[in-house]
């Protein structure tokens, strides 16, 4: 820490905390309503500034019990399976998307080759086409590949949709890493592949973490494709199950809110673990070499 950031940092720290607190209030306020909805029997409707259930006797865990099927072994077992499905599908999506995108991003950052420009442009263009009713073409393609009704097929679809962003993101990260490091390694006798795997890849770890998180999230909350491409209840992911609380005429908002909270907990845990590992001060080790 340098001398100057110590000086006058008390006031600054207060300001930063104040700023962050405002942001936290903005981030949490609507979520508090969701939590209230999940915890209360009737939900509250009079205009209130602070969302809390009416009184202690109004707080209930019934909605959580309903969603997890507590008390009914068969339903709890199904819920557990669907949770595992969600985790497996989302982690596999993150892994597949990163595995597909990283080498491509590296090549696009470091090599000159025929078709690089148009490839990059084309990839950006794919993001510009709104996917109105793209479920049916995807269904046909997966049918042709014999991947319909399989989680592998779903993972491939999710990963493919995440790849263009992942490539751009990782390419930017590789561009920000000084070339010297890899060149030095190669002068020392490393092959290009070794330079990529041993030097560039570790230095790009924060960006890879962000990309993986992005791919994970795109799979974690998706339900239309999952419901369309999967054909058995035991293969469904949690968002599909959650969405079934929304009916044509009525929606079980309490159950939906409880489910939404359950669904977001693993993400927060994951992020909490991942940020310590990957977002703090890795640069020191990576780039300084």
């Amino acid at each position, binding site marked *: 820490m340098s001398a100057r950031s110590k000086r006058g940092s008390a006031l600054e720290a207060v300001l930063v905390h104040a700023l962050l607190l405002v942001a936290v209030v903005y981030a949490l306020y609507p979520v508090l309503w969701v939590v209230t909805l999940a915890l209360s029997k009737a939900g509250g409707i009079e205009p209130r500034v602070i969302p809390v259930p009416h009184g202690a006797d109004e707080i209930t865990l019934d909605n959580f019990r309903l969603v997890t099927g507590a008390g009914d072994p068969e339903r709890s077992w199904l819920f557990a399976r669907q949770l595992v499905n969600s985790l497996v599908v989302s982690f596999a999506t993150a892994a*597949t998307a990163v595995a597909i995108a990283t080498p491509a991003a590296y090549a696009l950052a470091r090599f000159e080759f025929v078709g690089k420009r148009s490839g990059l442009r084309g*990839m950006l263009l794919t993001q510009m086409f709104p996917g109105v009713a793209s479920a049916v073409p995807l269904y046909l393609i997966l049918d042709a590949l014999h991947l319909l009704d399989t989680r592998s097929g779903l993972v491939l679809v999710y990963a493919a949709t995440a790849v263009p962003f992942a490539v751009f993101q990782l390419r*930017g990260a590789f561009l920000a890493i000084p070339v010297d490091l890899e060149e030095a390694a190669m002068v020392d006798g490393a092959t290009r592949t070794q330079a990529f795997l041993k030097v560039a890849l570790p230095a790009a770890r924060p960006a890879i973490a*962000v990309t993986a998180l992005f791919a994970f999230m795109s799979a974690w909350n998706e339900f239309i494709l999952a419901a369309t491409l999967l054909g058995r209840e035991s293969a469904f992911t949690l968002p599909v199950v959650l969405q079934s609380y*929304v009916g044509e005429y009525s929606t079980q908002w309490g159950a939906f809110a409880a489910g939404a909270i359950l669904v977001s907990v693993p993400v927060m845990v994951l992020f909490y673990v991942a940020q310590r590992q990957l977002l703090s001060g890795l640069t020191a080790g990576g780039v300084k070499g």
Partner: protein
Amino acid sequence: MKHLRALVTLIAVVAMTVLLPGCGEPPRGIVLWHPYRGGEEAALKKGVLRFEAERGLKVTVLAVPYEAYLAKLEAAIPRGNGPDVFIGPHNRLGEYLLHRLVAPVGDAFPDADAPRYEPVTVAAITYEGERWAVPLASKCGALYYNPRLLPEAPRTLDDLAAKRDFALGPGIWPLAYESHTAYWHSALLHAYGGELFGAPASTEGGAGAPPGFAMTGEAAERSLDKARELVATRVVPDEASGDLVKTLFTTGKAASVISGPWLAGDLEDKVPYEVVPLPSIPGVGAMRPFLTVDGVFMTPEGAKSEGARALARSLGDAASAAERAEIGKQVVATRSYWSAQDGGGDAAALSPEAKRQRALLVAFHEASADAIPMPVSPAMNPVWVPAEQAIRKVLRGDASPRDALAEAKARYDDVMRTPPREAVSPAPLVVVVGLALLAAAFAVVRRVRAPGFRRELAASKPAYKYVLHAAITILVLVVLPLVAGAAMSFFAGTREEARFVGLGNYVEILTARGKPLLSHGSFYLTLLVTVAWTVVNVALHVSIGLVLGIALARPVLRLRAIYRVLLIIPWAVPSYVTALAWKGMFHRQFGAINAILVALGAEPISWFAKFSTAFAANVSTNVWLGFPFMMVVVMGALTSISKDVLEAAEVDGATRWQAFRLVTLPLLRPTLLPAVVLGSVWTFNMFNVVFLVSGGEPDGTTDILVSEAYRWAFARNAQLGYAAAYAVIIFGLLALMSKVLGRIGGGDAKEAI
């Protein structure tokens, strides 16, 4: 290279082996899909189990969420992967027929069975002389009232209106219903002798003009005047969603509500209630709700299977009906259940709870006798949106009923415009596509013939090994579906019955279908809204993301890890429920935002009545949903910046701001730019916030281009070609914009993308 391949293969193998278990296909037998949940699902499964035991046939049951139901049916059935039988509401039959998802049920409902079901339900599933489903249960509205607040059952609307201005107690409304929806307004409309769709389904099917927008004339105007009066005189709260209606009733803030049998399941023992048919309007007539009938439909494949037909038939029999009534609390279509009730049945042996349950069903059964079955036609889907826009406009007091309805009718006619019937010459399309291909070929040839091309190509080989799998994945799973989608833009009609119209769809969109270019719902007006939407959102996403990302990067910050996790919560919670929480917060009478405004001494605002406030509501929701992503990107990018550089700047005497502007920002640029560019593109096409929060209110003005495309695809007679043309135009616009912005941004932007 070996390592790279090994890595990729390893990951792929691990991913696949983890995923493969569970892919082995057990024999499925007859496949049944349904959108049920809870009691209805349990009762259905019971009936299926009994059928399996009796017939020795295997049945696979799958519950599909309502929101994905039609998409899944539409994708699976034409490919022969669909169910044999599926359960759905009869009013969707028009769409099912349009997409060829159903066949007549044949001997699942023989003539001899006709007396088995309530006549009104048989009429509902009969269309053009054929029976298309085995009726299971009917759903319609009735009046729930709270006997503690209203000791006597309200028989007329005036009984309720007499309790206006909170005569029953502070904040207690005499009546609550979803007054701004066409489905519930129709009960009033029917009382005045009006109708929403023309030509209600006649029992024998056939005759009469095809259903279309019929909410015009004096009856419709009077019904709207009445609805406005109810809201204006504080008999009924405004903007009441289904959920709000329910909570008002359960918390004793509404003495009576109009809702369907599904409400009873949520009430349980929270509040005492009785159910009676809808009240009448003195001197006018009884309010009559719409009736929908859930039925078992047969897919074309399933109709060929004897077992599937037998299953459909057995689901309508007396034993299954009794289960569905007792466990699923359905108002079953099978008459034997009701005749057993009339005879007193086993009433003596019942618990008070079960007795109440039966009384409820009986009340709804009575109400259904007077209800109007929703007609069946593909032409009715496009009625809803213009009708609701008219209702909302009148309820807000923005237009007289006559003007609002005339406008709605014009909008319906505009949407239902018949695409060119006659065969269109493909010549203009061929010319356009040909020119494009020629230009592309020319560019390729020039590139190939450029000096040193072979050498370059040879030098590119190592790079290709790195990009090959990404290229294949994107081509097959991203580009191919898009091309298939784009190709549809040259056709009109449904997927199954497409007619080539060449560039006709494009011409219609770009000429605003012959109306003034900046008229309501025109492409150009929507484009302006979309651009404003994108600019405002992205600017806020990036600035909030940058500020928070940088604040969180301070190495000495206490509680940093906690802040980070709390701040990504908006991204982590499924947006469907949070978007609706935001919508609730902007409610005029019950929303938290207005509560805060009032606490601060300001006037409450009717957020969705004006474009500016509705737009602001949409933006604050979308900014909330999107800033954590940008924040995480900034955090990731900041960690890649070497501290040496910043320290060097400090040593050179740069101020904090100078260091940020001259050192940090340029270094962030390569990582941030793709996120900003892609973020803009995604925001441009972000329809679900607009759908869920403002829903286009007021009057469709907050709709953006992509929500317009969705409406054409799903809410307006499945005009997928028109929707696809919208998508292609959006694509072209964005491509053009990125090119222009790339020029303006100069080398840097080009380098990043």
